[in-house]
């Protein structure tokens, strides 16, 4: 036990001695959290539209003022021929064009009024939302002159996130990713660095057991990462007002299980790589896959089935789910047993592999 304690102290000293790395470990993640929380946003605030009018329709002013009044749309102009309208689209000036054909007025009160919506799909993530907003708007605009109302009235409640605020969701998720990136990279470089500078030989000939060695590497990083996580949650709450509805103990239990998995993973890379550069590249490959399949930026629901399996095999997915559930929904521990079992099982597996991968006799 004393040996382990001394090893932990050694690691902590080495981390805090390296003045070049300190800002990267502590400041960079938090700065990124503060900035990037604002960037991750699918919410459409401003849709630029133009009108292409073939028939010089005299109700254009009315339609324009409706568009202007609606806070989602900005009218960029009215064109009278196709090539001018498409040029706006090519320049990226507008997201959608409303096309009115030449006998629109005559047919306005009949049901055959023809409208075409041209949607710019180049910014794909939002094109579906633009389409639904714009067709909702046009539908309402046209039905003003038409008394029929829909037969089924669907009301909805947005539970847990009343205003559909993206920051509420993104801050916990981005925080998890930043902490994973820092801790996996640092552990991946750790052992291989000792190999490169030769200090590993000194450790190998000393009476330190494998478990003590691995524990001495894991525990300091886990403490730092857990501290950053807590600090990040506090910052999210103070600056962005992210709610914390659940039990903090649940988060701590899951965070420890999660860090056990991720740090063991970093150590596996580190004990097998030959150079720091290799270790970083391998860690990078996996981290990018973890981030993209975690369901944070593109939801798990929108992946094909095979990708769903990958997503389920990734610890990040489960920890993000837990963070969201506990923070926003106050989900109690017993409803999250599935995630806990998965994290503990993968932690056990990876930790064993990490311990086996480190050979003292090499």
């Amino acid at each position, binding site marked *: 036990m004393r040996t382990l304690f001394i090893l932990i102290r050694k690691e902590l000293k080495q981390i805090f001695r390296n003045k070049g790395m300190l800002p990267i470990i502590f400041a960079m993640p938090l700065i990124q959290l503060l900035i990037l929380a604002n*960037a*991750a946003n699918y919410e459409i605030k401003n849709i630029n539209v133009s009108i292409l009018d073939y028939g010089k329709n005299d109700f254009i002013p009315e339609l324009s003022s409706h568009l202007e009044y609606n806070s989602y749309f900005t009218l960029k102009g009215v064109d009278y021929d196709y090539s001018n309208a498409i040029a706006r689209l090519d320049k990226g000036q507008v997201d959608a064009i409303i096309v009115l054909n030449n006998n629109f007025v005559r047919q306005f009160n009949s049901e055959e009024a023809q409208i075409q*919506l041209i949607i710019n799909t180049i910014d794909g993530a939002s094109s579906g939302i633009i389409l639904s907003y714009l067709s909702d708007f046009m539908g309402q605009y046209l039905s003003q002159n038409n008394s029929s109302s829909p037969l*089924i009235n*669907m009301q909805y409640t947005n*539970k847990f996130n009343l205003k559909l605020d993206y920051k509420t969701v993104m801050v916990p998720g981005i925080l998890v990713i930043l902490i994973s990136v820092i801790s996996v990279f640092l552990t991946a470089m750790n052992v291989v660095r000792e190999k490169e500078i030769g200090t590993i030989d000194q450790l190998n000939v000393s009476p330190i057991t494998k478990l003590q060695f691995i524990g001495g590497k894991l525990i300091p990083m886990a403490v730092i990462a857990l501290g950053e996580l807590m600090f990040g949650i506090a910052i999210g709450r103070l600056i962005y007002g992210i709610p914390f509805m659940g039990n903090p103990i649940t988060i701590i239990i899951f965070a420890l299980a999660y860090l056990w998995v991720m740090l063991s993973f970093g150590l596996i890379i580190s004990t097998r790589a030959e150079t720091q550069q290799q270790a970083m590249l391998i860690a990078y490959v996996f981290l990018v896959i973890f981030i993209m399949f975690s369901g944070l930026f593109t939801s798990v629901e929108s*992946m094909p089935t095979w*990708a769903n399996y990958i997503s389920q095999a990734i610890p990040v997915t489960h920890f993000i789910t837990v963070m969201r*559930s506990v923070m926003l929904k106050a989900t109690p521990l017993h409803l999250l047993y599935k995630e806990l079992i998965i994290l503990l099982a993968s932690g056990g597996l990876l930790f064993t592999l990490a311990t086996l991968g480190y050979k003292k006799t090499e």
Partner: protein
Amino acid sequence: MKELIYFIKKEFLHIFRDSKSLIILFGLPIIQIILFGFALTNEITNVDFAVYDNSKSHTSQRLINKINATDFFTLQAYITNPDKMEEALISNSVKFVLVIDSDFAQSYPQGKQGKIQLLLDASDPNIATNIRAYLNNIITDFSQEEFPSLEKSDFMTVKMFYNPQVKSAYLFIPGLMAFILTLISAFMTSITLTREKELGNMEILLISPLKPYQIIVGKVIPYAILSIINIANILLLGKFVFGMPLNGSLLLLSLESLLFLLNSLALGILISSFTNSRQVAMMVALAGLLLPTMLLSGFIFPVSNMPKVLQYFSQVIPATHFITILKGIMIKGIGISYLIKETSILALLTLLFISISIKKFNVRLDK
């Protein structure tokens, strides 16, 4: 000049000697493009939901079946006790609960509206918005089927421009290309230069007949060549595996890609001019660039949705402009006259990176 060629040869030897890294450098872009090209979409499928049916009528059953029959939604459970609705959402077993009013089926004949309610798990706003839009369409269809007499003709037609089938690959592949190139090129250049500094070889190089700029050029050229091969790989994959169009000029695309490559290499040189430690260089190049390149460049989240301050900030991220250029040339098929702004910003940023590096680069032994 001869010295430079020998030096480049030496660098290539270094690169080829580390076969593991080489495999990653070439394999990584291919694996990422294939994995993400197929997996990243914005369309929802198989969203789990529960129903609390107060109406218990044939009409409500038909509605439930209709929703369940689509690819988008999968019925998980019927809830009979209203207290359980919240729990279904809290335990993450369903994404929404559909509540059908008790007089849903009786309302129609009397000309009243049938009422349904939707309890959405909005802890992921994107899914919540999508679910609502999809359900709206299904319900409109449903009421037209139930009451064909009220059927309206479709007065609105929609044309999806540039990407008619809204293929996700079209949207993600340009982003992935910029993302992969930035990180790999910046990472490799920064590490190769700092390694010489950290190990002390830089001093040996500086007393050799090579001039400082030749050292940098010699270090960077091998990685430039590797990255060009990567660009070609990604473009070919995009074309033949994902059917990415190339509506614009191939020459323009190649030139713009070279400009962006130069920019990423310059970024790597810039990072290495600020530090003597490989660890710091690697962490800045990978951990520091990873999320900003992903989130601020418009790769995943549209730049136009960001707050104004961040929109300006995204303008200094080179990937932002390269993604616009790629999408413009490949999908829109537009020429250089539409892309002058993006191209000149990229060129300016490259010049800026290089001139700062020249100023900072330490050719003396002690600072």
